């Protein structure tokens, strides 16, 4: 049996903020409600609910999915939570895609929520518990250190300068100025970024995304439903995900092979042969400034080591050949882990529907790619969406 076509028909999100007054359930509810309103469906018309949320340690709730279930609308119906660390926000769309494409369900509400501020004094402490308890935790590593390692390796391998990396922060925080949900938008210069304090050399404070509270959600539907209820469905053309070995210390950190694997899985499904020509808009994961460049290379949107040059040439600007992170990304909008990945999916949806307000890109983007990443520099999750119905 031919698989069914699946489209995104609604999207919504909360503001991303440092510390929300809302409970985790309330954040999830706001996003779910906004997405439902946008799709013009009612909760009772939703066949299943998929939740994406990253470590339970942030919210401080064991079996967080069960706690969040009713906030997401997931009671009295099929509900599950999928989880691939930081890659969850984009992966959740893949999960919902095959749940609907399989023919088991016709509609799905996909909600991603994160409330990091519950983790005191700082959510960074929770990240100590992601490391191997025997070989790594005794060294008391933290995320900034390991990403400083990866950034150094990336810069060293390709001869990239710190100024080139800083440009990502400048671009994304500027793009976020027009995002009504943004937490850390700013008009900055490369000098401002490099003048900010060094967190772990060579990572400066303004090259790091903040910790955030927030939620984002979409509604997806099988073709029959999507056609009936939406005049502008945005089709899910390809999904891909790939998880590398837990032994990250044995990997060459200069290039994310797992992102490449995930990207080709999604491109093949979408019938994309030359990503640099066929992708009009990209939302790669940018928790750190260098990661956007690193991921663009993994996504085959720039040759290895050349993303910084393309950025300097203006290719990735809003009016460039390939607008990258027009939302403002994690650096500008904020980084409530799983919700940040979902925010990127929402951005593709709004941009391709022409509903991105002041952020609306010139021309009519017809195909976009969103990507998220997580774990121990280990997982790539990719979704390709477009205005054209897949074969």
């Amino acid at each position: 049996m031919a698989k069914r076509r699946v489209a995104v028909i609604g999207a919504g999100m909360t503001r991303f903020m440092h510390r929300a007054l809302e409970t985790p359930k309330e954040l999830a509810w706001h996003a779910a409600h906004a997405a439902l309103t946008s799709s013009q469906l009612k909760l009772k018309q939703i066949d299943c609910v998929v939740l994406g949320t990253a470590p339970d340690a942030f919210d401080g709730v064991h079996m967080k999915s069960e706690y969040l279930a009713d906030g997401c609308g997931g009671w009295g119906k099929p509900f599950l939570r999928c989880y691939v660390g930081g890659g969850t926000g984009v992966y959740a769309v893949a999960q919902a895609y095959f749940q609907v494409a399989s023919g088991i369900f016709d509609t799905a509400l996909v909600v991603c929520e994160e409330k990091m501020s519950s983790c005191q004094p700082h959510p960074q402490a929770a990240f100590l518990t992601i490391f191997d308890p025997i070989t790594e935790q005794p060294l008391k590593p933290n995320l900034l250190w390991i990403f400083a390692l990866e950034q150094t390796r990336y810069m060293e391998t390709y001869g990239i300068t710190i100024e080139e990396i800083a440009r990502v922060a400048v671009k994304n925080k500027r793009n976020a100025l027009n995002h009504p949900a943004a937490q850390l938008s700013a008009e900055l210069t490369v000098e401002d970024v490099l003048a900010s304090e060094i967190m772990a050399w060579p990572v400066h404070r303004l090259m790091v995304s903040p910790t955030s509270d927030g939620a984002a959600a979409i509604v997806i539907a099988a073709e029959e439903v999507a056609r009936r209820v939406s005049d502008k469905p945005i089709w899910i053309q390809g999904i891909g995900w790939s998880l590398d070995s837990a032994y990250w210390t044995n990997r060459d950190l200069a290039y994310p092979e797992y992102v490449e694997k995930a990207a080709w899985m999604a491109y093949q499904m979408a019938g994309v042969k030359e990503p640099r020509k066929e992708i009009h808009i990209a939302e790669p994961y940018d928790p750190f400034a260098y990661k956007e460049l690193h991921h663009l290379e993994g996504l085959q949107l720039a040759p290895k080591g050349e993303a910084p040059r393309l950025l300097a040439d203006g290719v990735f600007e809003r009016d460039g050949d390939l607008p990258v992170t027009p939302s403002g990304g994690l650096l500008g909008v904020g980084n409530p882990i799983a919700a940040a990945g979902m925010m990127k999916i929402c951005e593709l949806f709004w941009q391709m529907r022409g509903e991105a307000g002041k952020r609306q890109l010139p021309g009519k983007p017809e195909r976009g790619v969103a990507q998220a990443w997580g774990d121990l520099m280990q997982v790539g999750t990719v979704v390709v969406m477009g205005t054209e119905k897949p074969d």
Partner: protein
Amino acid sequence: MSEQVAIIGIGVVPLQPTTPRYSFKEMVFEAAQKAYADAGISFDEIDSFVTCAEDFNEGISIFDEYTPDQLGCRQKPMHTLTQDGLHGIADALMQIRAGVAEIVVVEAHSKASNILTPDWLLDYALDPIYTRPLGFTPHALAAMDMQAFTHQTGITPSQCAEVVIKNRLNARDNPLAAYAVESNRTSVEASPYFSFPLHEEELARAADGCVVVVVANETTASKAAKRPAWILGTGFANDSPTIESRRWGHAEYARLAAQSAFRQAGIKTAHEIDFFEVDDTYAYKELQHLIALGLYAEPIEAGRAIESGATRRDGRTPVNVSGGALGMGLPLEAHGLYRIVELVLQLRGQAGERQLSRAKIGVAQSWRGVPTTSGAVVILGAEPPRG
């Protein structure tokens, strides 16, 4: 008609109260090796992998980091579900039907013996704002639910205690079981109350173990080394997680999950099913779940059935022939997959002394324990589904 999907291989580590000589990775490796050999495949033929695990149970945040190596899925599609293993089977089926994968591996394990303060950990599953500050053990939710259940159905606490005796007895013929100890009505009812009216002996005890299941599409399954166990239907559902608004005494999640699984399988009544493996985390839950699956016209019949022996191995509708969680032990998220293992062994005719004479269609049902209202149902058959 949708593509048929089957389980073509299983690998199991026998349940044990504690496993000091194994790391969780070694357990997963062992189960994976057994499963791949059972299915007659090599790890590089597998398209996609699913692990069911919870961070706090593992003691590691973002647990999916540690899943790939021992399963042989480096740089492959792999994701975790923070759900029971049966949700993982439903997930595998959906990936295959959607054309995303042809062979999917589902893994779940338990290293419960590593959790030094399980009840304290469970407290963290309560709503942090409205419920946790009340300072009670989540097991009390089961006790309250049992009160409502016995009150509403007329089933007696003694009938609930019979479940323990039956399942422990069944476990004595299961080499995978950790708690095949002899028990009788006195030993159960004389055990201290854990949380009234639940006796200590009516709680399944934690155990360590691992199950790996290989799920495949029709083409692969028809060439499989062993007789495939066809997935006739899957279902999963949640009731309200908020304790103020759930339906006490009634397993709504199991009813909804069963409804969808039965519909997929084209099964009209539970009487078409030969044997059941249902959740018995607390003794009364077995009866409550059988009622939710629609096995009885009136709930009180569940109490009569356990007393009359209708759900014993030699009864009319055998339930938890494996020994269930009460007899085998409760292996966290792997709970549902141990139910699947029993179904597959029975359908293949490999259940040894426990082998049922009639085992063509079996049902596995799981529940994620207190304080959740999350459950799943999988129906397996010896023959492919009817067109």
